Each structure stands twice: as structure tokens, then as C-alpha cells.
């Protein structure tokens, strides 16, 4: 049955979508205004859900229409979902403030198609992500995942050039292949266990050929959408080609949606089905992503591509938690410090990477290019932007007190306690490689220019928004100092 405050979960999903639907007929300038009305409301709802969750000392549940599963659909928010809801609300607000410079429609000017689409798609991405976090049903999750794809593909090609259209089409084809594999898995779940509700499924599922097939199909589909190495080929052109305010959304938030679904599948739906070798395989793909992404990022001549390849690498960290969470004693995935590390990594990457894409966008519009080799003098011309970029990188490397540090610390302690030292080596080597390419960028920007650097004005809201997200990421690790219930275990006891 629904718990107290469960209606807030429905509000978290409905609010962005209602704003989007209102914005469609309202048109350019009013669509933007609707987005700015929804942002504080959505933020308040996310905070409200967090407080309800703390009070209830268990998941917040809302049963739609009073029809209990398996016939009806339940929305649930547990610790990881609450953390992601809060993080997404914060990051969307930051990106929205930044986007005013690119997609604002000043009074009296004509509505542009890119701006009108951007604000609607921003709300659609937000609503779909919230649905992914709170859905308790594998089929609802499928619909949420498709909504997310349909909202994010047009973001890639807002500029409308041939290059971005091609990147968007390639992204869409990868996503479609992934979603059909996921749907096949969901269909087989219903055929084998007669329910799609995650909590009921967790009680009924047994380790057998059917459930192994299901996990393999769904995970493979979701990896294609998350762009885990070696299925990452669509990501760099798509994320680097989009306008900066869209890249920040795509790279910071959208990929976390399908990743979160893998977490739901492995930790909540089928913790006893997955095997240690399969978890090690996910970890190995993650390690491949870290080394490949970082090495390629190091060789990039353009800043936006460098940041996009850095995303490829950071996705790898998100998958290191799976082998680390495997409890060899009971032979199943267990909640614990590895899960907290993974969620913390997702949140700190969301804040840091959106700040870095926003900084890269500001640099592009100030200089008219983003060639790293010609960055001399940039730190003097755009000190706040370069500082924010550096802070984002500081979190990605994992230096204290950044969120990236806490995430790595938790993952390292999980590696130590489970005796899987090789993942600790990957974590540390990845941090060194990250430091290398950030050093290249920042040291270029700090160099004295041969001729005075001419920069174009970049708008009033860009720098504060970028700096706020970068600061959030760089200080996120301080939550370890406070007595937050559920940390570092990630969720409070009490099941379902």
C-alpha cells in the first residue's frame, strides 16, 4: 500500500511532463518561462521526497489508483532513488540557468526552433529520469527508458548540421537495439515468473536458464544505451557535437538512466541470480572503458571531444561496483559500501561533467574554437570558467574532499574487504590517467599568450551556474562528515 507522502513520487514524475505539455502550445518564450517555474517546484518535490524517506525509515511507496501489484503499478523510492532524484533536480536547475545564454528568447525577439525544443526536451529528460528512478515495474521502466531516448536524441541534433544529424541517428539506432533487447528480457520475465513488479519478482526468481537469459539480454541492451566500452562508439560524436547546454544534460544525466536500470536489475530484481564471473565481466568492461577512454582523451586536440571521451572513461567506474558488491559467502549481490560508492560516483560525475561541458561551451563561445593547443592566456581571460573546469576535473581525479574521492574511497574499501585487489589498481591507475589529460588542458590555459587574447562576452548566468555545479561536485565528499542515515550503506534496512 501507499506510504505517507507517496503522492510526492507521482508529483516528481508528473510535474516536468505537465510543464512540457503546457510549453508545447505556449511557444518559445513561455516554454522557457514554464521550465523556470517547474525547476524550483521540482527541486522542492525532490527535497520533500528525501525528508519523507528519512522520516519513514524505509522506501516511499505510491500504488497507482490503489491497485496493488501484480495487477497494478507501484512507484517506489529507496535510498539510491532518493539520492538520484535530488542530484538530477539540482543538476537540471544548474544547466537550465546556464542554458539561458544559448537558448534564452529575449523580449521582442522571434522564437527560434532550437530554443523552443530545448526547454521542452529539458523537461522531458527530467520527467523520464524521475520515472526511471521511482518505477517499481520492469515494463514501466521500459517506457521510461524509451521516453528518455526520445527526449535525448533530438538534443544531439539541435544544431541541425549533417554531422550532428548523423551522430543522432547513430545514437538512436544503438538505443533502439538496446531497447528491443531489454523488452525481450521483460517479456521473458513475464512468461517465466508471471509478474513484472521488481519486489515480487525478487521473491519468485530462481537461478536457472530462463533467469540467466533474461539478465543477459536486459543487461546487454542497457549497456548499449549506457555506452559502456566497447559499445561506446556512438557517444563521443553525439555528446561533443551537441550544444553545450545539451551535452551537459546528455553526459551528466541521461546515461545514468540506463545505468540505474542495470543497478535495479542486479541489486533489486535478481541479486541471487547473477554470478561472480558475470559481475567480473561487467567490471572488466568497466576497466576497459577506463583505460581506453582516458588514453583516447589524452590524445584529443579539441576540448569538447576530450570531455566526451572522459565520459566514456567515467562510465567505466560506474560498473566497477558490480564485482565489488558480490558477496562470495552467500553467492549473491549484496547492498553495501560498493553500492554507495557507485551511486556517489554517479552523482559526483553528473555534477562535475555537466560543469565541465558548460565550461567547455563557455570557452568555445568566448574564443570561437576549442583547440586545446591555442588556450594560452585563457586562465586570465576567463578565470571563473577555467577554475570551474579544474574543479570538475579535481572531482573526476578523486582528490579529497570531492565527491569523486568519497566514491573511490568506498569502492576501494569494498575492494579491500572482498579481497579483489585488482579493481583497486584499476581505480588508482584511472585516477592518474585522468590527472594527466586535465593537466594538459589546465597548464595550456595558464600559459602566457604570445598576443593578447580576444574573448567574446559569454553572458551573465553561465559562469555562476558552472561554478555552482563544479563546487557541488568538489565538496560532495563532505557528506561523509555528517551523520546521514543510510550512509555509507546506501539504503535503510526494511525491505520491499
Amino acid at each position: 500500500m501507499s506510504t505517507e507522502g507517496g503522492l510526492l513520487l507521482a508529483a516528481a514524475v508528473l510535474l516536468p511532463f505537465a510543464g512540457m505539455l503546457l510549453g508545447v502550445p505556449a511557444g518559445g518564450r513561455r516554454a522557457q518561462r514554464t521550465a523556470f517555474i517547474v525547476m524550483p517546484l521540482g527541486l522542492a518535490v525532490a527535497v520533500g521526497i528525501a525528508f519523507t524517506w528519512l522520516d519513514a525509515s524505509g522506501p516511499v511507496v505510491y500504488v497507482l489508483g490503489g491497485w496493488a501489484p501484480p495487477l497494478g503499478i507501484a512507484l517506489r523510492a529507496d535510498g539510491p532513488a532518493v539520492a538520484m532524484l535530488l542530484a538530477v533536480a539540482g543538476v537540471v536547475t544548474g544547466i537550465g540557468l546556464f542554458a539561458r545564454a544559448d537558448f534564452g528568447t529575449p523580449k521582442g525577439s522571434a522564437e527560434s526552433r532550437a530554443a523552443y525544443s530545448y526547454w521542452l526536451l529539458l523537461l522531458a529528460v527530467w520527467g523520464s529520469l524521475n520515472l526511471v528512478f521511482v518505477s517499481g515495474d520492469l515494463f514501466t521502466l521500459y517506457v521510461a527508458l524509451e521516453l528518455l531516448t526520445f527526449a535525448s536524441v533530438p538534443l544531439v541534433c539541435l544544431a541541425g548540421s549533417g554531422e550532428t544529424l548523423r551522430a543522432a541517428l547513430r545514437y538512436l539506432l544503438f538505443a533502439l537495439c538496446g531497447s528491443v533487447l531489454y523488452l525481450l528480457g521483460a517479456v521473458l520475465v513475464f512468461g517465466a515468473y508471471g509478474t513484472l513488479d521488481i519486489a515480487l519478482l525478487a521473491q519468485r526468481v530462481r537461478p536457472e536458464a530462463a533467469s540467466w537469459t533474461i539478465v543477459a539480454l536486459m543487461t546487454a541492451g542497457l549497456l548499449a544505451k549506457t555506452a559502456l566500452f566497447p559499445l561506446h562508439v556512438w557517444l563521443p560524436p553525439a555528446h561533443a557535437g551537441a550544444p553545450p547546454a545539451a551535452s551537459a544534460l546528455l553526459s551528466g544525466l541521461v546515461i545514468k538512466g540506463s545505468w540505474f536500470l542495470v543497478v535495479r536489475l542486479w541489486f533489486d530484481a535478481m541479486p541471487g541470480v547473477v554470478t561472480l564471473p558475470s559481475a567480473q565481466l561487467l567490471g572488466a568492461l568497466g576497466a576497459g572503458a577506463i583505460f581506453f577512454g582516458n588514453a583516447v582523451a589524452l590524445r584529443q586536440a579539441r576540448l569538447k571531444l576530450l570531455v566526451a571521451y572522459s565520459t566514456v572513461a567515467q562510465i567505466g567506474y560506474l560498473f566497477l561496483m558490480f564485482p565489488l558488491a558480490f558477496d562470495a559467502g552467500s553467492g549473491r549481490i549484496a547492498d553495501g559500501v560498493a553500492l554507495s560508492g557507485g551511486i556517489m560516483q554517479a552523482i559526483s560525475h553528473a555534477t562535475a561533467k555537466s560543469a565541465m561541458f558548460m565550461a567547455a561551451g563557455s570557452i568555445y563561445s568566448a574564443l570561437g574554437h576549442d583547440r586545446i593547443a591555442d588556450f594560452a592566456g585563457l586562465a586570465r581571460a576567463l578565470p571563473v570558467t577555467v577554475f570551474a573546469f579544474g574543479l570538475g576535473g579535481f572531482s573526476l581525479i578523486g582528490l579529497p574532499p570531492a565527491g569523486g574521492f568519497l566514491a573511490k574511497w568506498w569502492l576501494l574499501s569494498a575492494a579491500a574487504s572482498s579481497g579483489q585487489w585488482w579493481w583497486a589498481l584499476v581505480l588508482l591507475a584511472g585516477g592518474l590517467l585522468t590527472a594527466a589529460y586535465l593537466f594538459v588542458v589546465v597548464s595550456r590555459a595558464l600559459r602566457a599568450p604570445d598576443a593578447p587574447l580576444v574573448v567574446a562576452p559569454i553572458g551573465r548566468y553561465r559562469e555562476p551556474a558552472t561554478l555552482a555545479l563544479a563546487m557541488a561536485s568538489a565538496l560532495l565528499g563532505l557528506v561523509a562528515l555528517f551523520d546521514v542515515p543510510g550512509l555509507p550503506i546506501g539504503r535503510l534496512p526494511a525491505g520491499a
Partner: protein
Amino acid sequence: MTAETLIALVACALVGIGLYGLIVQPHPLRKLVAFNVMGSGVFVIFGALARRGAAAGMPADPVPQALLITAIVVAFAATAMTVALLLRLIESTGSASLAAEPPAADGEAR
């Protein structure tokens, strides 16, 4: 062999053909057709499962049918979106190839 088993086997063949086409065919339109073949296979499997899971006195389990309608709508929307993107791509570049062009001049894309 019961009718449901036969239908399910045909559906598996459809999924296999679709997946093969989606990976192997280079042209985006062919990929899209392959995606639809694969999707149809999934829908047919769902139908066969609905028939197998029918309660006594009922021709089929109604829940999969309700979900199936949603899944078909989603697949239709995805197909429409892919075609729209493909048309825009042909309009702006004159070709429907997914292969990357030679590296663009500096600062062209942002």
C-alpha cells in the same frame, strides 16, 4: 508440437534475423527495417506467452495484450522518429550514410 511452441519458434527466428540485420546491414533504412523485424519477433513471443499463460476458460492472458499495445506504440514512435531523422540527414548531406566524413575543419561543430 503445440501451436504456441511453433509460434514461439517462428518468433525466435524473427528476433535472430532482425538482430543479424541490425548489426550487419550498413544502410540506416535497412537497419530500421531489421529493428522492426526484431520488434515483431518480440511481440509475437509475447502473444505466444499470453496464450500459454491463459487461465481456465479464457482464450489468453489479457495482461500481455495490454502491454503489447503500449510496446507497439513505442516501436511505432521510434520508427517514425528514425525516418524523420533520416530524411533530415538526406536533406542536409545528400546521402544516408552513417560513415563519418573526413575530420571536419577546426571549430566547425560545437
